[in-house]
């Protein structure tokens, strides 16, 4: 296309080669440059430094009684912290052998069996499941129930029934003392 205007010319082969080379070199460098110039635009939409800095949450577990749950905010999402009763722990470990859509052992999902910490976002399409408040429906498996499309989670936060494809994810966290954790 670039050289159509000069086709009529009796251009020497040498000149033609030199021009083709220049054209390709310039185009290549120009395309690379344009690509690099677009990166700052794209990257500006990634989380900013202050957003990243705020992505840890400290939770005081001291006041939570067995069988109770609290919801804390981490990265703008709800995180479910449940202090499980011995019964709930037993059910969860017993079901390790059940038929699971997303197989995972209960022991791999907790650091201390008493404390279950999962991101409270349904893995189907992002609704927040019910089951944190005493009066909430907890689903057929005693964990959580997502009202949007009817997914049931068990007492280990594993998907047991409904359209969701995966278990409630466990966020990265660590015990900073016996009664406090840091999420993130």
């Amino acid at each position: 296309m670039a050289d159509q205007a000069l086709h009529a010319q009796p251009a020497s082969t040498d000149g033609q080669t030199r021009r083709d080379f220049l054209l390709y070199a310039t185009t290549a460098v120009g395309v690379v440059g344009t690509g690099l110039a677009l990166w700052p635009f794209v990257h500006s939409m990634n989380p900013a430094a202050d957003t990243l800095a705020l992505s840890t949450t400290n939770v005081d577990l001291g006041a939570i009684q067995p069988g109770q749950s609290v919801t804390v905010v981490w990265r703008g999402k709800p995180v479910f912290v449940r202090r499980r009763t011995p019964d709930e722990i037993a059910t969860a470990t017993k079901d390790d052998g059940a038929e699971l859509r997303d197989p995972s052992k209960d022991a791999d999902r907790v650091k201390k069996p008493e404390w279950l910490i999962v991101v409270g976002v349904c893995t189907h399409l992002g609704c927040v499941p019910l089951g944190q408040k005493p009066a909430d429906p907890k689903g057929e498996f005693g964990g959580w129930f997502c009202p949007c499309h009817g997914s049931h989670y068990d007492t280990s936060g594993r998907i047991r029934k409904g359209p969701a494809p995966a278990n409630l994810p466990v966020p990265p966290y660590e015990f900073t003392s016996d009664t406090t954790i840091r999420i993130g």
Partner: protein
Amino acid sequence: MSGFKTDNKVIAWFDERLPIFSMLQHSAVEYPTPKNLNYWWNFGSLAGLVMVIMIMTGIFLVMNYTPHTTLAFDSVERIMRDVNYGWLLRYVHMNGASMFFILVYIHMFRGLYYGSYKSPREVLWWLGVIILLVMMATAFMGYVLVWGQMSFWGATVITNLFSAFPIVGEAIVTWLWGGFSVDNPTLNRFFSLHYLMPFVLFAVVFLHVWALHTSKSNNPLGIDVKSPQDTIPFHPYYTIKDLFGVGVFMVFFLYFVFFAPNFFGEPDNYIPANPMVTPPHIVPEWYFLPFYAILRAFTQDILFIPAKLQGVIAMFAAIIVLFFLPWLDGSKVRSATFRPLYKQFFWLFLADCVVLGYVGGKPAEGVLITIGQLATAYYFFHFLVLLPILARIEKPKPLPASISAPVLKGGGMAAGATAQPMEKA
């Protein structure tokens, strides 16, 4: 639009239904362009490029900007400090505004020198003046968004211009503000309009280019294209020439962005807006300085017209007069190359504008007031008196027979000069 042919069936199918490829072929590839355009003809496409850069950086800046008096300043600083490459986007946008005006002013003075506003390009010229007006409004409102001291006081001073109009003035200003001072409602509407205007600008630029492709490019000789010998296809000749210009310009532009990003700015705008304290020297951005000087040049009430109103009228008139330029300059010869007298006065006028800009940036005191008044008088004298007179008394030099004529006379007569257009014909 007949020249487009392709072997690609899909493209052919599409083009039959929406002739976008034919249009490109017609207006960006084959488009016959005078072959003698010099580098001053690069500035139009450069201005177009900066417009695109401004819209792009602007859209991405908005993603992190908050238009509220309590948050605007800090949200800009967050962009500078925390957003990935936010400082780059913001400095490009900030310096891009200055670049846009540099390019457009050069583009306009090129038009003045080579008579590009004359028949048949009057509408093309009008559209250009409208572009300038839209740019000014956009730049002014954008500057306010930062909500620094200069933003706030610039907004206060400029909106107060409208209070000069008798009877309705005060009501207009209150309406512009959405309150009794520049405040949150003002900031919000400026933000809305600052986002809207660039798209208006884009539309007017489209019309500008359409008008250009209808009346065709002027050229340094200012004479009409007489035969295919006088033109070359836009691509590849002017695409590569424009691209080379882009490279040179980007070096200039990015030097400021990376190494002197606040060169065109005012330190006071890094102080958050404070409605209780006016900075000692308020100056507008440099590209408004000549008009600012005209605004301040009027200090005496004349009859029933207060000085304030005179200044406001004169400032607007300084741009409005450009609409009448094609008729004020009655000379049939376009290019200053062949107008010995006009050429002198062109440079004098350019110098006058520079003087106005200088005066506009200084405190109004002492001899500068008089200089500003004389320069203002000369500005209007140039358009309203000098140009009509020159058209009558000036004896232009003889024009060349055609664009390719001087080359042929020069004896160079290279094969290319004739081979080229033959192929076009």
